[in-house]
């Protein structure tokens, strides 16, 4: 993976049939992780309607295979930079449903003390650096995090998530160039869900082959079926290995689709029902479940059991958030500067 190449082999593949199913426990774990995100977010929609969650809420439903697949390739010391559509990455990276739900409820028990909300989930201990709501704004941050790791002689990798919309931003191109020029250990994960908010890829890009764009900066770039968690995991493992070995950044274009609107404000007038239904036929959760059943990796009743576990976790998170406390208003101006400096 040292030479800049583009492989389009997985593009548009109908299923992950050529990716062998991993060990049963691992496959089950992939299924559970994707289901956690799906059910967590479905409840978020209800809570939004009930006005428990406010502000912007961007759902990852349909894209779960991307976040879950990439996270399999990361070690605990690796860093993650994500976007405003990051509930999935946060959950898959190990942040608790409780801390995320409490954050969305604006409670001080939330991962960002209620200062960030849905779009700004942070966990310094897990090296989860947001939660960035400026499109493309997190990309140079990831380059810098990776530069710091390299300059300090550490072998960590920074995984940087962004969407196809970010590819139109100047800072995307600046960061691709900088990362390749300095050969810093970043895994660029472009979640191509085909729409920059409501503008289709072909309406905002003259060149819609996003891996090709990245390859032009002198880095290895691959297009991957982002609806197939096994394909995502396999590509991510290979890419992370190359990045960790010091071959410089790798770019993955993860071709996916969001089943829900851009945000809770979006009437979703720019896509056809047929298009959405077509993509739903490739639902990453049911594709994996069906495959596991067919290959005897999912026993009768196991899916129901998973559903029960996940429901219990989400119920618990909601109860935790409901019981959470509001930060005293007297603390409003905290965290503008570090408290060690202010004292």
């Amino acid at each position, binding site marked *: 993976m040292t030479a800049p190449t583009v492989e389009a082999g997985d593009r548009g593949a109908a299923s992950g049939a050529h990716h062998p199913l991993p060990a049963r426990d691992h496959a089950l774990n992939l299924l559970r992780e994707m289901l956690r995100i799906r059910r967590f977010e479905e409840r978020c929609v209800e809570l939004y309607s009930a006005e428990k969650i406010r502000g912007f809420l961007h759902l990852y439903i349909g894209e779960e295979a991307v976040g879950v697949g990439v996270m399999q390739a990361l070690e605990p010391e690796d*860093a993650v*930079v994500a976007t405003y559509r990051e509930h999935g990455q946060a959950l898959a990276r190990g942040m608790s449903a409780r801390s995320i739900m409490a954050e969305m409820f604006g409670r001080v028990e*939330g*991962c*960002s*003390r*209620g*200062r*960030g909300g849905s779009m*700004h989930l*942070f*966990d*310094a201990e897990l090296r989860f*650096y*947001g*939660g*960035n709501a*400026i499109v493309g*704004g997190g*990309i*140079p*941050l*990831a*380059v*810098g*995090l*990776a*530069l*710091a*790791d390299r*300059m*300090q002689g550490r072998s960590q990798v920074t995984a940087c998530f962004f969407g196809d919309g970010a590819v139109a931003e*100047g*800072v995307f191109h*600046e*960061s691709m*160039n*900088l990362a390749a*020029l300095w050969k810093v250990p970043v895994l660029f994960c472009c979640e191509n869900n085909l729409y920059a908010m409501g503008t289709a890829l072909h309406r905002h890009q003259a060149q819609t082959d996003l891996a090709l764009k990245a390859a032009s900066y002198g880095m290895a770039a691959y297009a991957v079926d982002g609806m197939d968690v096994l394909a995502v995991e396999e590509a991510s493992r290979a890419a992370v290995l190359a990045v960790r070995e010091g071959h410089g950044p790798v770019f993955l274009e993860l071709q996916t689709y969001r089943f829900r609107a851009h945000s809770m404000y979006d009437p979703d007038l720019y896509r056809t029902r047929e298009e959405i239904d077509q993509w739903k036929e490739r639902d990453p959760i049911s594709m994996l479940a069906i495959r596991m059943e067919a290959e005897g990796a999912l026993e009768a009743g196991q899916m129901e059991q998973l559903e029960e576990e996940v429901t219990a976790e989400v119920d618990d998170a909601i109860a935790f958030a409901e019981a959470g406390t509001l930060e005293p208003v007297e603390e409003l101006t*905290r*965290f*503008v*500067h*570090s*408290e*060690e*400096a202010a004292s």
Partner: protein
Amino acid sequence: MTEAVETRTTTYREAMREAIREALQRDERVFLMGEDVGRYGGTFGVSRGLLEEFGEERIRDTPLSEGGFVGAGIGAAIGGMRPIVEVMTVNFSLLALDQIMNNAATLLHMSGGQINVPLVIRMTTGGGRQLAAQHSHSLEGWYAHIPGIRVLAPATLEDARGMLGPALEDPDPVIIFEHGSLYNMESELDGDAPPVDLTSAGVRREGDDITLVTYGGTLPTTLAAADELAGSGIAAEVIDLRSLRPLDTETILASVRKTRRAVVIDEGWRTGSISAEISARIVEGAFFELDAPIARVCSAEVPMPYAKHMEDAALPQVADVVAAAREVVGSRP
């Protein structure tokens, strides 16, 4: 018995270079990056010789990608380094404003206190060199509007030499504005130049009749005006803000309470400027002690013209400061 401290004549540019060199020597985590800081030696010559001394890992030339390398500086700061990012001029920093405002200044608060950004950004600012409308503006006041960053304007060799060290020890982002007209300024500097505090304003000249508040590139202008005023019997006190955020309101108010008159000199445009903020603070804190309305000397509200006579007319000049001060003093109750 105290040992005599060796002093020598040096320039603002060299003082800044020494400060960077010392920071690089003292802390392995410190590195300098920016456009042409390495092989070229810095657009204004500040980093000349540092590449040879510290190597290209730590004196890091960047592409012309202000958003990219300022953002990378923020990431590197979060990742445990102590970057000094040089942006060639404040005008180019607008290409990085998103990173400065939406990330550097915001991450700590947005993350509930988890992610601090120990980053220093240095940039030149200001006019007076016939560089026209895209290289001459003084936008420090804009940056001073943003909560979450510290904004410094060293106007003396002591501050050029002494502010960087404490700025690098700050756990949060600091922007240092170096006015282009100051680089060749020469004066004596102590050999052991101590670090300076980053929060208080300095009284550069004492006087009882009027307070002249300024910072950065207009400090020499204001001191020259104070000299001229002294010739006609007006004793002006000159306050050098040093820090535009936070503002040392107390030092300003203490002086105004003594002199009962104030002129604010600011190379930024008047409307919505730091001079407006200072005027407001004086009115809020010392309204009943004022004997005359506050006056301001600012840049004309035009994009900076190239022709010298026009640029001179646009920028605060000694004569403008003297005239404003005379008028304020003249309006005795």
